[in-house]
């Protein structure tokens, strides 16, 4: 293929992409808007549920520490985004927990879910979570 026809081929693809882009945007726009609205609402709820200190901890360290209401030396590290919840006992990670909502939720809502379940429903929380013991 000559250099001229290569340039023409590239130009054709650019024109096709430019023609398709607005249509793709029109199709995706409602989903993108809905997604960002959901995240915004979830962030509002998260802010309402946390103290300013807890909110800064979550933003700065990437996790929220929730003390156990039943075991004073135990706390739970809830990640800001998807992942395992770490159980810390006497300053050492002893377990990782995997628990998730049955329906899809924005990440900020999942943090609130863990916090509420630990603080007010710890027994059920531990019963339902899959547990992975930390050996190190």
């Amino acid at each position, binding site marked *: 293929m000559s250099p001229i026809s290569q340039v023409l081929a590239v130009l054709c693809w650019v024109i096709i992409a430019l023609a398709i882009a607005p249509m793709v945007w029109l199709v995706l726009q409602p989903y993108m808007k809905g997604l960002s609205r959901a995240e915004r609402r*979830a962030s509002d709820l998260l802010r309402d549920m946390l103290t300013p200190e807890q909110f800064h901890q979550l933003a700065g360290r990437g996790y929220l520490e929730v003390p156990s209401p039943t075991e004073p030396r135990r706390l739970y590290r809830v990640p800001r985004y998807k992942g395992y919840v770490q159980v810390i006992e006497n300053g050492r990670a002893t377990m990782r927990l995997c628990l998730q909502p049955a329906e899809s939720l924005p990440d900020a809502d999942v943090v609130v879910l863990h916090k*509420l*379940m630990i603080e007010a429903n710890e027994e059920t929380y531990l019963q339902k979570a899959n547990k992975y013991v930390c050996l190190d």
Partner: protein
Amino acid sequence: MDGVDYEGGTTVGMLRVMSRRGDDRLTWDEQKAQVGDPEALAAVREAERIFTQERAKGATAFRMVPGKQAQRIEKFDPMAEQIVMVPRVVGG
């Protein structure tokens, strides 16, 4: 007194149900409901209906009290300032 005091003296309860859309909110004026205001009573009934429906699907409900830890509740409480419902959870 329970409830959020807004300017103008109305006292509002709120039900927040987590979903993939963020949280769906429903508010009611508990003072007006207590004196039999039809609109306020309808809002309370609707909140109770949603509460019962979500509980039947396995959701857990928490009553939020300012400055205190959340309390798990089994029954709808129209006097609550804020009720947050989280969907059923499963081990991952």
